[in-house]
């Protein structure tokens, strides 16, 4: 594969009745591969635990047949797996959208202040004695959205400038993180530890009830994500070209950021700011598909795979002690990204965000 990566030849035409569209062959292959990986990881996730359940048995339970292990798999492990999948996918999409708008591969929800906003509100609530797990997720969702809205308002000046947006976002992010650490050092030692675990991101004890917000959000946001997948292409052009082509840059960017922010905030509310999924997944996906843009579907699948694998490891690595998932997402994702960077063959493969 030493050819230059600008090749329209990489596309195939898919015909369905009278409709037809272009399909990036490599992306499709990667997506199928990721789906297979995800399916395998999910089955493994359901098998492994305090009590091992055989893969065939897991598949039979999933197909609805009675089994003595139904309770363990369906009531204990499945909800948590669903949260892992949903959170990973949400972070993957959010990261892809925000990196596209910011035109910076280092940008992600935890860099423009969403995670920190959620963190500051949550830790503040914990410090003031509010520890109920029914209220905290909604508080952190509100915190994330609020932080992003503030960044957007301050970065808006007759238009949204990519660099200005990221810089102001990162400024707010650091300020909010400082507030969080202030709460942590001034507060009680137990609150600090609890807050530390929340801020690492954990899926521990997440059941069907806790996962409701993220499942509904993903479902409701699906049309918006489909729109984003198309709109994303236009904003990756430079400002002048896009404007000349008749793209309303301000509106499109606002839309893309809004979709990303909602997804990231809800995911953070459910699982805490699971580090680096949003940063790493889009870059891993783009390097696998070798497309010019960040592929949304593959980012979502990569994000989900990283979170599921990380939680699987976290549950079993030091059992019976469980490591929070956020500790291991980077350990799963970062080596792979490093490997992709090191063996990148074409000089231009690392050339664009």
């Amino acid at each position, binding site marked *: 594969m030493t050819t230059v990566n600008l090749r329209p030849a990489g596309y195939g035409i898919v015909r369905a009745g009278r409709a037809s569209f272009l399909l990036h062959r490599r992306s499709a292959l990667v997506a199928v591969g990721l789906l297979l990986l995800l399916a395998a990881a999910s089955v493994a996730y359901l098998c492994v635990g305090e009590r091992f359940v055989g893969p065939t048995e897991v598949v039979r339970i999933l197909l609805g047949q009675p089994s003595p292990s139904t309770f363990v798999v369906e009531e204990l492990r499945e909800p948590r797996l669903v949260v892992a999948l949903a959170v990973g996918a949400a972070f993957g999409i959010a990261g892809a959208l925000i990196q596209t708008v910011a035109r910076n591969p280092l940008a992600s929800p935890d860099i423009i202040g969403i995670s920190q906003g959620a963190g500051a509100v949550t830790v503040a609530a914990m410090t003031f004695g509010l520890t109920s797990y029914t209220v905290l997720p909604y508080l952190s969702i509100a915190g994330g959205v609020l932080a992003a809205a503030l960044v957007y308002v301050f970065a808006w000046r007759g238009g949204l400038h990519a*660099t200005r947006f990221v810089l102001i976002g*990162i400024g707010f992010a650091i300020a909010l993180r400082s507030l969080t*650490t202030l709460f942590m050092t001034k507060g009680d030692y137990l609150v600090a530890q609890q807050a530390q675990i929340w801020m690492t991101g954990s899926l521990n004890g997440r059941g069907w009830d806790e996962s409701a917000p993220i499942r509904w959000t993903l479902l409701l946001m699906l049309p918006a994500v489909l729109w984003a997948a198309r709109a994303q292409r236009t904003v990756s052009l430079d400002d002048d070209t896009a404007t000349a082509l008749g793209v309303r840059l301000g509106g499109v960017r606002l839309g893309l950021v809004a979709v990303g922010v909602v997804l990231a905030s809800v995911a953070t509310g459910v699982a805490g700011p699971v580090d680096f999924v949003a940063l790493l997944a889009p870059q891993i996906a783009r390097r696998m598909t070798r497309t010019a843009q960040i592929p949304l579907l593959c980012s979502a699948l990569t994000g989900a795979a990283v979170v599921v694998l990380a939680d699987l490891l976290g549950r079993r690595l030091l059992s019976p002690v469980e490591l929070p998932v956020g500790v291991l997402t980077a350990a799963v994702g970062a080596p792979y990204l490093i490997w992709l960077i090191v063996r990148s063959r074409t000089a231009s493969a690392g050339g664009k965000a």
Partner: protein
Amino acid sequence: MPAAFRTRRVLATSAAVVALLLAVLLSLAVGARAIAPSTVFDALLHGGTSPDAEVVRQLRVPRTLIGLMVGAALALAGTALQGITRNPIADPGILGISQGSSVGVVLAIAFFGVHSLTGYVWFAFAGAALAAVAVHAVASGGRGGATPVKLALGGAAINALLLSVTTGILTTRASALDEFRFWQIGSLDGRDTQIVGQIWPFLLLGAVLVVSVARGLDALALGEDVAKGLGQRVATVRIVGGIGATVLTGAAVAAAGPVAFVGLAVPHIARAIVGSDHRWVLPMAAVIGPVMLLVADVAGRIVFPPGEVPAGVMTALIGVPFLVTLVRRKAVPA
């Protein structure tokens, strides 16, 4: 216009130096025990054994020195890293160098039984150096060498990896968390002259390295090909600048903990004031960095008396309005 601009630059630089002197004076005079400026001068020039003189010499002078050194070091390191990676949001934190120090310190606390600030220094330093070497090794793999995007992404990936090591240790060892959470914020409190003695040679070395590639950074800002065409050895500029930035970051983090924000924001503020010529930006950053850190430290001493808010927290809270105003005022290139 060029002449006017030059005058403006000189004026701005002089103003910054005056601000620095004021910040130093404030840092020496303000605190739990307020000391009149005349007494401060007296204590510095003539010594004396009054309680005020003791406070100034034993506590405030080392603290102010550390603030000066750390502020300048982080600002210079941030400027160099932003130039090398050509990424406006690059800074020692996001590229994993500070995180390397954190891993060093966490290991020191959790496994080597080191519990003093002077003991942390070498662990922090070694961590930063290893992290930087790893980032460069990752980025220079593959074809095309260490391009800006690969450096930035490699840094982010290493940062992620190191953070998971840190949190992994902290979530399993509660006692380490209790000690580390105070170091992690970054503070100038409780640093004595011994630390100043430990880090100043490194700061000097790092500053010289970074300043020596100022022209190279200017050329690199025009793009890699243009820089090569102008006769710059791009790889050398990157490596020398990178070593300089690493040494500066390592020393600064070793002395004061990973103070965020200075390395990111000060280069932007400096550029907004004196333009993009690195021979002006670097000195300007080296002056503004300490101003920001010292003012934040002083503010931290007086907001919640009798307690103190660490400088690492106050810098961001005080600095964000400046960053937002400047970034909004200036038309930043995309």
